[in-house]
């Protein structure tokens, strides 16, 4: 580790001991969040989400395809993420690397396991024709906490998406059928025994472990993913879950407000 990162690490550790973070936030506090659904005209659904400087655009496209043999009556979701070199000097062009794959799969599980999309209503002809929902995550600016930013953008894009039935001669367009209240992903990082939510890039770079927890409105769990090569105690895991439930409630409210605004504009 060269000299600058070591200095930065020492500084972040020192602050953490005093209960402080480099941008002045509390340990459980998120940066400002903005959610702008509907910004891509060519997409069936889309959203730009900023958490602090981190910025993600998610787009939903839909196509007609064949169902999987084991779920003949059900639509299909496919989630991809690209860590394009636009967003960071460290991202490289080329096929998705491990980090992008993990990001896509964690976002995907958050959506799939909570059955946010009513896939059973995306069957056109049982065993023959169903709707495929493509979620594409484009990271635009990377300053930490991609998991939360990407899940939130994907949810905002899904909740405001329109099924393009007319394009395929399948009747009138209609809103993508979604279930009520989505689970929200909240991520905490651990370094030097401190647990901080919504880590900055600088904090991620010195972190030992990371935990992402998706909780629903009732505080139930729907997906978890531990990352990095450090470990957690059982108590730390529980503490993070509790923090995720609290933060999740607040973020869910923001998400719902942004969706409402779009729906009102449409009518």
């Amino acid at each position, binding site marked *: 580790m060269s000299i600058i990162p070591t200095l930065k690490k020492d500084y972040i550790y020192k602050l953490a001991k005093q209960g402080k973070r480099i941008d002045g936030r509390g340990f459980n506090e998120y940066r400002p969040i903005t959610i702008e659904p509907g910004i891509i005209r060519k997409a069936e659904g*889309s959203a730009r989400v900023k958490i602090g400087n981190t910025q993600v655009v998610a787009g939903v496209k839909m196509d007609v395809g064949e169902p999987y043999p084991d779920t003949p009556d059900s639509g299909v979701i496919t989630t991809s993420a690209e860590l*394009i070199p*636009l967003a960071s000097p460290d991202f490289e062009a080329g*096929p998705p690397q491990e980090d992008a794959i993990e990001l896509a799969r964690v976002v995907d599980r958050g959506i799939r396991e909570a059955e946010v999309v009513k896939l059973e209503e995306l069957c056109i002809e049982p065993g023959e024709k169903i709707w495929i929902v493509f979620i594409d995550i484009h990271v*635009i600016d990377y300053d930490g906490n991609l998991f939360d930013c990407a899940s939130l953008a994907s949810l905002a894009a899904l909740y405001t998406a329109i099924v393009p039935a007319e394009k395929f001669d399948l009747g009138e367009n209609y809103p993508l059928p979604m279930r009520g209240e989505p689970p929200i992903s909240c991520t905490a990082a651990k370094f030097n025994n401190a647990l901080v939510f919504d880590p900055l890039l600088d904090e991620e770079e010195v972190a030992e472990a990371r935990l992402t927890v998706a909780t629903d409105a009732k505080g139930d769990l729907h997906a978890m993913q531990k990352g990095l090569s450090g470990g957690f105690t059982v108590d730390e895991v529980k503490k993070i879950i509790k923090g995720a439930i609290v933060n999740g409630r607040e973020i869910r409210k923001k998400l719902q407000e942004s969706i409402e605004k779009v729906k009102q504009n449409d009518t």
Partner: protein
Amino acid sequence: MKLIDEEGRRLDGRRFDELRKIKIEAGVLHRAEGSCYLEWGGNKVVAAVYGPREAVPRHTQDPVKAVVNARYNMAAFSVDDRKKPGPDRRSREISKVTSEALERVIITDLFPRASIDVNIEILDAEAGTRCAGLTAAAVALADAGIPMRDIPVACAAGKIGAEVVDGEVKGGYVVLDLGKDEDNYGNADLPIAIAPRTDEILLLQMDGHLTYEEFEQALDLAMKGCHIVSKLQREALLNKYRPDLEENL
């Protein structure tokens, strides 16, 4: 499809020499060294610049100058039918001609063995993305403080409204900045990029059908379009730096 009426009014109401609405903002990203957000009609583009930095892998280094790598990329959701992520042949050709055009104005011999990486992301696409992308890239380069002889700018002209009878083309109008239907159902497209101070042509492609005279008209029109867009580029840069400038007064 009737792309232009008897009075020379186009589908979206524009005159033959009118551009679509353009909005340019410089310095929009936190991480990149220079960046630009640009809307051009229905196109939405973000460009970001990293470098000059050591070119990797090492065998790509040029011992006497910097290498300019423009990477044009379309988001999967930016087009009518979802595009598979990753570069296709079209993107790679556009990346190549864009790199060549930008290299001409960048003072590359200041940075031997370096690369200057220009990332162009098309978030929403509606005809003319290569011109929009190059124009945004130029602003991002300037925002990054990369030394350049000029700020390049791109614009297209084309021809619409001709009738084609078994390969024979009759009539048609030379117009500026083709829109979506004009691009799909028009007769020719001529995207160019220039260095506006000298009018040197940095990028030039053409397909379709133009008589020599029509080509001259189209080239002239595209040049004029470039100069209009060039002003918007400079304003965007000024808008970003004006607060700093005023502060220093």
